[in-house]
């Protein structure tokens, strides 16, 4: 795969950025600073913390599924880090339904909460194939779902951002929240892994 930094689009972006700087519309390095600001504090550990708290507290799960933006404030997180607060939609996996998130039009992702998205999430292959054949794509990720589990693909085609609430693994009844959080992966939060 061609490196992002050497791609045609990157060269175009650098060119536009330098023109904006030359005309005094942007300070040198301002865009990088704004991107850093936006992504500051964003890490999959935030998502893992939300999931672990949901596993430990059924009332929180209910509030999270009803209004994620309000509920995540209870664990000290927020979707209001950007220019405006982004709506967060949390979808919960169950024995009968598995959820997986994609942005077919570009690469929308809860960056302010989870940090930058993985490269594969932005790839044309993932974006075009997961809506057509999610079961096949998940199998390639090593996730083999029972035929009886229905799959819902959520396309982040507008303004909401999404988070998958994975099923709590068996045999974790005695674990503390921090230990539960350590089980949750970024793929689990997108829906391309079971946890």
């Amino acid at each position, binding site marked *: 795969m061609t490196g992002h930094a050497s791609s045609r689009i990157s060269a175009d972006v650098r060119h536009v950025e330098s023109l904006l700087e030359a005309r005094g519309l942007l300070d040198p390095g301002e865009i990088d600073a704004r991107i850093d600001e936006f992504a500051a504090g964003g890490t999959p550990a935030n998502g893992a913390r939300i999931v672990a708290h949901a596993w430990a507290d059924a009332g929180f799960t209910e509030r999270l599924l009803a209004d994620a933006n309000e509920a995540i404030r209870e664990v000290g997180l927020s979707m209001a880090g950007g220019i405006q607060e982004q*709506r967060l*939609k949390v979808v919960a996996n169950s024995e009968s339904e598995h959820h997986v998130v994609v942005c*077919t*039009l570009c690469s929308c992702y809860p960056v302010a909460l989870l940090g930058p998205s993985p490269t594969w999430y932005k790839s044309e292959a993932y974006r075009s194939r997961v*809506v*057509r*054949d*999610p*079961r096949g794509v998940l199998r390639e990720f090593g996730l083999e779902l029972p035929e009886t589990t*229905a*799959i*819902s*693909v*959520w*396309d*982040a*085609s*507008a*303004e*909401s951002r999404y988070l998958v609430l994975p099923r709590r693994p068996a045999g974790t009844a005695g674990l503390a929240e921090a230990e539960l959080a350590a089980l949750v992966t970024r793929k689990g939060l997108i829906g391309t892994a079971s946890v």
Partner: protein
Amino acid sequence: MPDRYAPGDRVRTRTTDVDGHTRLPRYARGAVGVIVEPAGRHPLADERARGRACEPRTVYHVRFAASELFGSGEHSVVVELWEDYLEEAS
């Protein structure tokens, strides 16, 4: 302005191929789906991309059967669509 659609309503997406930016993905055009729930109110992305002022209007999660979108498949795809892209389906 109240939401035009409620959860459970059947809607059909627009078929027109607009000239320029839109957030109605090509694979979801001219398809019948079911409203899951409203997803907030936002200015229409198509208008914003053209630099036009635009009042916020309701966006919905709309669930489509894969067979409706692609002619085959057992899964469903939930697409987030502005009210402007939708019309009532019988």
